[in-house]
């Protein structure tokens, strides 16, 4: 949070580089993963989609300090919108993503207008309730969503008309990684803009920001809508890759998992969201394949350890270590 507020012109080049940095890191990491784990692409794709989702949550929790437990609402709306578009209108994946983003944004706008008037426990409770209402609605509207059986039979046409989604999942992986890189670029630009600064100010002290004339409520709704659009994109990707949308997209546990992943990695930093998701998903996967019955212990233990030792998340590990070294 100690980044200089004013950027003078000689700094411009450096800033534009740092804006690109997270996307480049992700692309490099993904290329490496693609070569190293050619048989795990479906799992890697799930991680990448989850990363997009967690990054969107980082925008509202990490940047603006809005703690909700209903982020799955936007994810689910995006997933259903993309699924329905693919089934009834056009199987084009890019169009599906766009529709998913719109659906997520609209949901976020409608719910945000109410939600963001509250904060603290009230906000948490209302956001949970909102997701449960959506889940019940999806379960009831069988003619549209297929109810508890899920919206099945979603197929998407080849990407850009060229690349067919293959069995091993190569196209799905590259597609998801590209979307993630794009999202990261967008977030990085957003964070380093004056708007991003205002958000961090709101996170620090909403009343002071109000005192200096920032329309706090409007800023919050804006960032909520942007995060909703990104969550909608993540949902749309899941629908396209899985080919099925179940009412479980609105599960409370999904919203909770997202928060756990972000806190694990470190809220407020894009890298924190990425690292947290990666660690959570990989540990979950490994622990669950070693012992499919008791793996939850490992996750719980890891979370307790991180929260006690590194309250600011794994991303703060290097600073923490240097601090400790300096003290001794």
């Amino acid at each position: 949070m100690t980044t200089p507020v004013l950027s003078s012109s000689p700094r411009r080049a450096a800033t534009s580089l740092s804006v690109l940095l997270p996307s480049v890191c992700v692309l490099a990491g993904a290329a490496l993963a693609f070569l190293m784990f050619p048989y795990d692409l479906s799992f890697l794709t799930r991680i990448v989609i989850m990363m997009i989702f967690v990054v969107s949550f980082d925008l509202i929790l990490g940047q603006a300090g809005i703690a909700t437990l209903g982020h799955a609402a936007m994810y689910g709306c995006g997933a259903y919108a993309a699924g329905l578009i693919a089934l009834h209108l056009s199987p084009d994946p890019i169009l599906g993503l766009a529709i998913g983003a719109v659906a997520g944004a609209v949901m976020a706008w409608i719910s945000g207008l109410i939600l963001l008037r509250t904060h603290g426990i009230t906000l948490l409770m209302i956001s949970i309730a909102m997701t449960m209402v959506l889940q019940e609605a999806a379960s009831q509207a069988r003619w549209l969503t297929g109810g508890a059986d899920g919206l099945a039979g979603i197929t998407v046409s080849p990407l850009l008309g060229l690349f067919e989604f293959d069995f091993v999942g190569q196209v799905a992986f590259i597609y998801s990684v590209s979307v993630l890189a794009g999202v990261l670029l967008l977030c990085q630009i957003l964070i380093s803009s004056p708007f991003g600064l205002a958000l961090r100010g709101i996170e620090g002290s909403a009343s002071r920001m109000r005192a200096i004339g920032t329309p706090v409520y409007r800023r919050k709704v804006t960032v909520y809508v942007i995060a909703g659009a990104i969550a909608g994109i993540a949902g749309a990707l899941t629908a396209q890759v899985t080919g099925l949308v179940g009412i479980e997209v609105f599960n409370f546990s999904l919203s909770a998992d997202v928060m756990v992943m972000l806190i694990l990695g470190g809220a407020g930093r894009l890298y924190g969201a990425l690292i947290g998701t990666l660690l959570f998903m990989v540990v979950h996967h490994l622990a669950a394949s070693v012992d499919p019955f008791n793996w939850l212990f490992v996750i719980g233990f890891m979370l307790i350890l991180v929260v006690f030792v590194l309250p600011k998340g794994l991303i703060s590990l290097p600073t923490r270590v240097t601090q400790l070294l300096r003290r001794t």
Partner: protein
Amino acid sequence: MKLSKLTLCLMASAFSITGAAARADTIKVGVIATFSGPNAIWGKQFREAIDVYVAQHGDEVAGHKVEFVYKDVGGPNADASKAAAQELLVREGVKYLAGFDFTPNAVAVAPLTKQAKVPAVIFNAATSSINKQSEFFLRTSFTLTQIAQPAAEWAAKNGSKKVVSAVSDYNPGIDAETAFSASFERNGGTVLEKIRMPLQTNDFAPFLQRIKSSGADTVFTFLPVGPATFAFTKAYNENGLRAAGISFLGGGETDETTLNALGDQAIGLVTAYHYSDVHDSPLNHSFVKKLQELHPGSRANMASIGAYDGVELIYRMIKAAGSDGAKAIEAAKGMEWESPRGPVKMDPVTRTVVQNVYLRRVEKDADGKLVNREFATVPNVPDLGFNP
């Protein structure tokens, strides 16, 4: 960078070669189910039944060693199920998929089974339409229509005239309601009211009061196993429906794993279902005995029998076709065998087992344990809800 890429490729290819050599005569079966979280009972029952089958029949079929690989999906979760199936097929090289406790988990793998031509044996998921999604699905559990329709016929023949159906408001409940009421009315009965109760509620008193004052003589119900069933049967007694002579007709509500928790209030409840762990046959006795021996404290239920017969089917397919999926499916169609639940046959059209449906009444056995005692049989019922 170039060098490291090359080494990586080499490593990857070396890995895949050794992997292939190691599984030359092993056929892997991927089991996708819920092993953690609130629904972990499904995975537990599946795994224990598989253990029993392997203990009784060995792990070798026609020269192939059979190995089971388990994947947890943590509940109804289509994405996890698809990713697990993809991983099992691509990396583990499984030749058969199995498990599938929830409908979305099964539907999500339908395209994969078609692409990879790998048979997927469903141990539980009971929506008729699943098998339409892929010709590689085989089901050794049941479908809701398969249970509800015989229940309606039996009720109509045995003195029920006016019925209220009260089901949980989600797809399986509605399937059961539709099948029951259509069949009951065809057999000359009247369905007074169709009540759909919220899935999340545990307060059934208002619904049961409505049923009581409706003048019905029977209540047909379908609820998911768990707290809802517990609350419903309790409310059935407490609101005086039993005393008023309104008989109870259900399906899986008196599941063996939760039956003892229901307590004495459950005694006398009548259900129509395809398996009871006290089914009287030597095969079932040895199955239950072996299960007790390997996993003391466990009770066999419909999930156990689904998995047990599922493995039987997989063994038979391996015997007939080895690891050739398309050939295995053809061989499976029409297969008949004696299961601990009674005679079963793989229907060539619906690819769901044809089986006996039993009418059972909850009783206390000699050891004070509650059991589902079978007292009438509707023989050889196919999946009646399948319309291709």
